[in-house]
């Protein structure tokens, strides 16, 4: 959508001008049209794009999985023969030389055309309106939602998901301290992800030698499961017990996307290195109870074709031996160290000592978490955790927003896409 459409000063009828045409011109080579809209915006649309997005009943897809136009049947060039506006239906119609379907007229609705304008400004807007916004944890703290105010209602669930989508994390107080609550609540959002750790798992000090999670040791900032192609998306921590005697054990949270943008500003060269030189993450253990071989290689920071950060992978516990070309080794370590120092800045961190009935829901693709070391002193610290795919979470958020009649912008979620 164009910025002008959200300008508060304009009236409703003026906003409709954005879907009305002042003028259409065809290019000299007859391979694109330029539309001047009544609100003074200009859009250019190219032949292949228009033809393959035709909205006529023969071409337009109405069922998921349909492919109605076989684009490989078309010639390389098919110049525009004729274009005109149908004002009553608010469409434009085109005919092409070299058209494959007999007697076919390409139909494109004006509102749809404007909403899919791909001029540089509209593309920038598409990206800008989905950017993540960052809080300053040292100033804002972790504001809780109270379970009583959100339970059993669509609006309540929507508010929780809104925080997860926009802030990266939502803290809910006063949830039932029953194991089943976590599964029911998570499943009301989307299917639980079943990994080799099962559908859900407990976190407590077992003095484990299989995994550092089940100990009392300090866990630095990390995202879970970096050894997979895609880390499991939205993670839930549900506190069942956290006795008074236990010293330490606070949960710590930091926004990795925020850290990556700070790195980009403060050390652009180091930022670039981390977008190019991959890290290897691995869990290889043939001897533990669930033997496993997971290995993947990916850059710590991933940028897309518009140089937007679209994914961050950070897990110093799973990162394995770096194997990259010699001339990149020292740059890599220097850059990685810079990023780590930013992630661990005190002002970027939320610290929270969980209480029974606390629930933390966060986007494991955006936010890194950790735990201070703790001393049990005879007490118990017991959490349970599960995951829902972040794309399913965003889907639920958008669907709920639609059902509640609320305008929702789908924020970037760290799944390698800026939309």
């Amino acid at each position, binding site marked *: 959508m164009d910025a002008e459409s959200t300008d508060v000063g304009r009236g409703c009828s003026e906003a409709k001008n954005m879907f009305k045409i002042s003028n259409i011109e065809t290019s000299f080579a007859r391979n694109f049209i330029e539309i001047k809209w009544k609100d003074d915006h200009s859009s250019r649309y190219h032949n292949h794009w228009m033809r393959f997005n035709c909205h006529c009943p023969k071409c337009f897809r109405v069922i*998921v*999985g349909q492919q109605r136009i076989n684009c490989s049947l078309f010639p390389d060039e098919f110049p525009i023969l004729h274009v005109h506006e149908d004002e009553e239906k608010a469409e434009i119609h085109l005919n092409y030389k070299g058209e494959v379907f007999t007697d076919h007229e390409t139909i494109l609705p004006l509102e749809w055309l404007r909403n899919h304008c791909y001029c540089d400004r509209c593309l920038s807007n598409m990206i800008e309106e989905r950017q993540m916004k960052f809080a300053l944890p040292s100033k804002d703290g972790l504001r809780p939602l109270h379970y009583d105010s959100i339970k059993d209602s669509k609006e309540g669930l929507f508010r929780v998901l809104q925080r997860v989508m926009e802030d990266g994390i939502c803290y809910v107080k006063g949830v039932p301290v029953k194991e089943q609550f976590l599964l029911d609540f998570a499943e009301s959002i989307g299917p639980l992800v079943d990994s080799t750790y099962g559908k859900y798992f407990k976190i407590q000090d077992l003095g484990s030698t299989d995994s550092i999670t089940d100990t009392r040791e300090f866990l630095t900032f990390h995202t879970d499961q970096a050894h997979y192609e895609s880390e499991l998306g939205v993670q839930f921590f549900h506190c069942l017990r956290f006795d008074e005697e236990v010293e330490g054990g606070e949960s710590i949270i930091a926004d990795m996307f925020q850290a990556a943008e700070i790195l980009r500003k403060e050390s652009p060269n180091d930022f670039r290195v981390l977008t190019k030189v991959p890290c290897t993450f691995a869990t290889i253990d043939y001897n533990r109870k669930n*033997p496993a*071989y997971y290995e993947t290689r990916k850059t710590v920071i991933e940028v897309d074709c518009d140089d937007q950060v679209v994914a961050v992978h950070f897990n110093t516990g799973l990162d394995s031996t770096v194997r990259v070309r010699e001339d990149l080794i020292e740059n890599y*370590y220097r850059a990685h160290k810079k990023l780590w120092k930013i992630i661990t800045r005190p002002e970027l961190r939320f610290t929270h000592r969980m209480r029974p009935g606390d629930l933390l829901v966060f986007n494991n693709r955006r936010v890194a978490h950790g735990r201070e070391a703790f001393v049990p002193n005879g007490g118990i610290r017991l959490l349970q955790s599960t995951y829902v795919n972040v794309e399913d979470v965003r889907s639920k958020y958008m669907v709920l927003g639609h059902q509640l009649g609320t305008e929702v912008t789908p924020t970037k979620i760290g799944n390698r896409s800026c939309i």
Partner: protein
Amino acid sequence: MADYEIRDVQASSHKNIIQVYWEDGHVSRFHSCWLRFNCRCQICKKITVGQHNIDKSDPNFSDQLTIENAEFTKSDVKLTIVRDVIKDHVTYFDANWLREYCYCDQCLRKIITDRQMKFADPRKIPKVDCNELKSDEGTFRMIQKVFDVGFVILTGVSQKEGSVVEIGERLAPIVDQTYGKLFNVIDDPKASKENVASSTIGLPFHTDQCHYERGPGIQMLHAIQFDECVEGGESQLVDMFRVMEIFRKESPADFRVLTRVPIFFSTIDFKRKSPAYIKIRKPVIQLDYDDEVVAFNWNPGTENVVQVHEDDVEPFYRAYRKLSQILVRPELMFQYRLREGDMLFFNNRRMVHARAAYKSNGGTRRLQGTYIDIEELKSKYVVLGHKLGHNVIPPKIGNGCSI
């Protein structure tokens, strides 16, 4: 495994690199920071998953680490680093480990070529009797074939409902996404309004679930019913990695375009029974750090409107059309008509699949399907191989990386 022996170790004049000369003539270079941060001594070595014993961000590690002293024997190397954060720390490696992790250009290249996919002859359909899955060795060989060729047909599967989930679960966790744990593919007039798979028309080549960041890796389709009178309905598969290699050779410029200009996929439907909003933007062809093709995205049925820079629009469509034309070359297609008791088991991140149109003629064609996680299957394969004493090279599976 062979034992590697060290002949000599020399530190560079700037003391930030050591050169290791091996008995077999190989030469390796290792940087001081790499050596220190991968130290294999008892204090530093990782024993437990998730441990990190060396704090690389410790400000006491100087930005430029230099080597004070380097000693070696035939089978190990010991170094000291100037002003190491741990007092009197000795950085230690045994020769075999060090050689295995050599990162000279030659060794780096070998990691990738060892794991390259090999392309099979589409005239040969790989079949495995499902009884093979009763043993570890049989299971290992079956998974190996799936990773080698891209798919197998399991034969002799029980016609019990849900067999596909039963077999799948034993191999890797079921991926429950959109269609549920178990779905039926059958001509159903009501369901066909929501998804074109539930009809008799032919389906174009595609991979499932491209609108997710990561499609489910392995798809299994069990022919629970496929009457003789049904005409058509053959399963068709093409190795997309082979197609992309051909594309790269024949049209390198077009190939480049599809690695750079992204395509959009979406499933947005607020009205259907399970409303959903899933939308994503990613390139058709994904390259990695070594310029290798490591993943792709292809589904003409869920593609959404391309919104990219004007200069990229026409090149995008030209490249896309070229690729579509290579994909349908007859000599690249595996084709097979499933019989009752057959189960198609394929790598949905490597193969594109299609279905020929069919005529029911009063009969029924019903497949039951599920998805299992491919990274878990790869883990199972390597772990099994290790247990059985085989020398397993972890294969490239099309999940976004070469290793």
